[in-house]
C-alpha cells in the first residue's frame, strides 16, 4: 500500500486534501499545520480518513480535525455527515465511549486566593470522586431508574438533587437527546451501567481545576463569564460500561446488517446500516440513550466537584456560584440541519473525537451565548494548557460545524511508560505548581503531557482554519485521573 500524501489546498494554509480515488465517494479534508501532517506519517490515521470517505451517503468530505490521530474505524478527530433519510450510520463513527464529553464550571475565585489550598483540593476531589476502576460507584440503580436515566439524561440527575436547573440550559441538547429508547439497550448494557453513574473512568478521563491565563477575545470572554486568573473546573467523562456495551452490541448487529444491505467497507470497524433500516434506527435510539447516561454521569460528577469546592473554599458561598459554562459531547452522532449544495438538508453528523462548533445566531446554542457562538471546550494535557474557543459560521461550511476536541495523542501508552516514572512526572508537575492524583501510577504515566501533541499547535490550526476562534487559554492547577 502506497503512503497517502495529502496536498495543501492552494488557497488555504491549514487545509489539506486527499483527492478521491478507488471507492472514495468524497475527498478527505484534514485541517492541520504542516507539522501535524508530518507527524501523521507512518500512522494509519490518513488511511482511516480515506476509509471514512467510502461510507454510503457521506456528504462533502471525510473531515479530520487538527487533533487527528489513529483510532479504529474513524480516526480520532474524524467527522462525517450523511443524509438523515438515506445515509448510513456506523457505531465506528461514534466510538465505544458514547458521548464522552467535557464541561467547564466557572468560579468566582482567582488563582491567588486558592493557591495555598490546592493540595487540600486535590486530596478532597480524589477522595470524593470514585474512579470506577475496580470499585463500583456509590449510586446503584434499579432497572426502572436506569431506564429513566437513559431517557432523561442530565435532567434525571438534577431532579435527584445533583445540580441546578440552569445547568440543563448549558448542555448540548439540554442534556438529553431526543429519540433515546431504553428498549434498544441490551440487558448486558443495563447490567454494566447499574453502578457507573457518578464515576470518572480511567484512561484520559479527568477532573481538573485550572486558571485563565490569557484572554484573546474580551467581549466573548465576558459573555462566557471568564476573567483573568479565574479558577474554573473541568469534568471529562463519558457513558462508562453502559456505552461501551451498546457499541459492542451494535457492532455485532451491524456485521449482520452489512450482509443484508451491504456494502463491505475497507475496515470492519466501520460496519453500519442505513439510518432508515430497523438496525440503523435501533442503533440511533440506543446511542442516544447511552449519550443521556453520559450526561447524567457528568451531572453527578459536577455535583461532587461543587460539594468539594465549596467545602475547601467556603468563600464561594454556595453551589449556585459555580455555574456551568457549557457541556459538549465529542463522541456522538447528531441529527442537524446543514447547507449542502445550497439546500438545507437534515443530516446525521458523526463526530468521533470532535466538538460541535456552532456559530453566532444558531438556534441550538443557549440564548446567553447566541450573539457570540457556542463555547468550544478543548482540554489539553495535564501539564500545559487548555483552551476555550467560540463556534464560527465558517465551521458550518468547512466541517459540518465541528472543531477539535483536545490535544490528541502523539505517543503510545507504552512509549510514555518507557520515558519516565510516575514519581518523576509528579515531581515535574509539582515544580510547575500542578498537583496531580491518579488511581494508578501506570495510568498517570500513560497520560503524561509528553504523550500528547502540543494543544497550542492544534489550536493554531483550529483558529487558523476558522473552525473555531480562540477566546481564552487556561493552565492546570489540580488534576485527578481515574
Amino acid at each position: 500500500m502506497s503512503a497517502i500524501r495529502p496536498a495543501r489546498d492552494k488557497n488555504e494554509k491549514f487545509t489539506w486534501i486527499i483527492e478521491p480515488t478507488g471507492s472514495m465517494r468524497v475527498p478527505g479534508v484534514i485541517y492541520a499545520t504542516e507539522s501535524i501532517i508530518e507527524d501523521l506519517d507512518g500512522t494509519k490515521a490518513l488511511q482511516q480518513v480515506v476509509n471514512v470517505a467510502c461510507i454510503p451517503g457521506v456528504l462533502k468530505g471525510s473531515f479530520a480535525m487538527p487533533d487527528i490521530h489513529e483510532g479504529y474505524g474513524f480516526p480520532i478527530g474524524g467527522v462525517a455527515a450523511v443524509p438523515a433519510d438515506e445515509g448510513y450510520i456506523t457505531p465506528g463513527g461514534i466510538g465505544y465511549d458514547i458521548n464522552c464529553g467535557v464541561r467547564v464550571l466557572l468560579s468566582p475565585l482567582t488563582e491567588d486566593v486558592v493557591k495555598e489550598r490546592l493540595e487540600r483540593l486535590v486530596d478532597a476531589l480524589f477522595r470524593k470522586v470514585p474512579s470506577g476502576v475496580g470499585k463500583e460507584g456509590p449510586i446503584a440503580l434499579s432497572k426502572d431508574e436506569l431506564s429513566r436515566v437513559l431517557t432523561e439524561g442530565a435532567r434525571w440527575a438534577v431532579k435527584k438533587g445533583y445540580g441546578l436547573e440552569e445547568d440543563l440550559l448549558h448542555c448540548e441538547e439540554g442534556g438529553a437527546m431526543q429519540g433515546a429508547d431504553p428498549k434498544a439497550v441490551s440487558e448486558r448494557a443495563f447490567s454494566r451501567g447499574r453502578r457507573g453513574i457518578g464515576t470518572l473512568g480511567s484512561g484520559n478521563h479527568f477532573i481538573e481545576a485550572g486558571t485563565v491565563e490569557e484572554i484573546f477575545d474580551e467581549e466573548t470572554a465576558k459573555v462566557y463569564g471568564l476573567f483573568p486568573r479565574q479558577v474554573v473546573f473541568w469534568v471529562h467523562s463519558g457513558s462508562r460500561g453502559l456505552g461501551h456495551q451498546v457499541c459492542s452490541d451494535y457492532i455485532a448487529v451491524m456485521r449482520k446488517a452489512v450482509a443484508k444491505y451491504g456494502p463491505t467497507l475497507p475496515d470492519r470497524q466501520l460496519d453500519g446500516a442505513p439510518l432508515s433500516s430497523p438496525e440503523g434506527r435501533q442503533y440511533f435510539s440506543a446511542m442516544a440513550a447511552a449519550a443521556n447516561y453520559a450526561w447524567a454521569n457528568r451531572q453527578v460528577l459536577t455535583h461532587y466537584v461543587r460539594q468539594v469546592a465549596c467545602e475547601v473554599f467556603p468563600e464561594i458561598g454556595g453551589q449556585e456560584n459555580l455555574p456551568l459554562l457549557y457541556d459538549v459531547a465529542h463522541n456522538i452522532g447528531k441529527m442537524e440541519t446543514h447547507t449542502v449544495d445550497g439546500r438545507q438538508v437534515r443530516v446525521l453528523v458523526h463526530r468521533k473525537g470532535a466538538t460541535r462548533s456552532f456559530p453566532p445566531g444558531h438556534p441550538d446554542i443557549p440564548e446567553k451565548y447566541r450573539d457570540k457562538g457556542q463555547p468550544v471546550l478543548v482540554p489539553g494535557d495535564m501539564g500545559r494548557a487548555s483552551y476555550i474557543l467560540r463556534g464560527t459560521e465558517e465551521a458550518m461550511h468547512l466541517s459540518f460545524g465541528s472543531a477539535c476536541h483536545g490535544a490528541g495523542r502523539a505517543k503510545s501508552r507504552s512509549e510514555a511508560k518507557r520515558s519516565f516514572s510516575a514519581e518523576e512526572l509528579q515531581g515535574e508537575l509539582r515544580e510547575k505548581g500542578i498537583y496531580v492524583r491518579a488511581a494508578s501510577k501506570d495510568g498517570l504515566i500513560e497520560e503524561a503531557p509528553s504523550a500528547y501533541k502540543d494543544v497550542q499547535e492544534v489550536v493554531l490550526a483550529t483558529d487558523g482554519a476558522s473552525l473555531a476562534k480562540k477566546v481564552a487559554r487556561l493552565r492546570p492547577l489540580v488534576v485527578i485521573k481515574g
Partner: protein
Amino acid sequence: MGEKTWGYEFRDHVADVRIRAWGNGFEETLGALTSAIWRYVLGDAEFPANRSWGVSVEGQDIDELVVGFLNEQIYLYDSEGLVPVCVNSLDIKESDGGYRLEAVLEGSSLEEIPFLPKRQVKAATYHELVVRPELVEVTLDV
C-alpha cells in the same frame, strides 16, 4: 519440562493497546491473549484461581468469534467482577453456517483480589485484527 509454546507482547498503538499473542493452536493462543488482557488491567501482582466459569459465543466467522470471546470476558468482569487467570479448555466448532466457541475460564472474583485494578478496558475491536490459530493480534479500546 517442555519449552513454553505460548506467550504475548504489548505493541505500540498511539491511542489504545495492541496485543500480539501466540501459541500452539487456538486454545493456547487465546489463553495467552486472555492472560495479557487481564495483566494489563490488573498489573503484575499474582492472585490464585479459585473458581471456574463457562463462556459460550457464536460468530459468523472466526474474527467475530475471537472478538466476541474477548468482549464476553470484559462484560463478565464489568458486570459480575469475574477476573480470568487462564483458559482451562477451549473448543471451536462450525455451527449453523457460522462458528461457536465454548471455553472454561479459571480465575477469581474482583472482590477477593487483595489489590485494586490499574486500568479499564472498554472493548476488543476489529481494528487491524489478525486471527490465526497460532497468532492473534487485537487492539483494545482502553
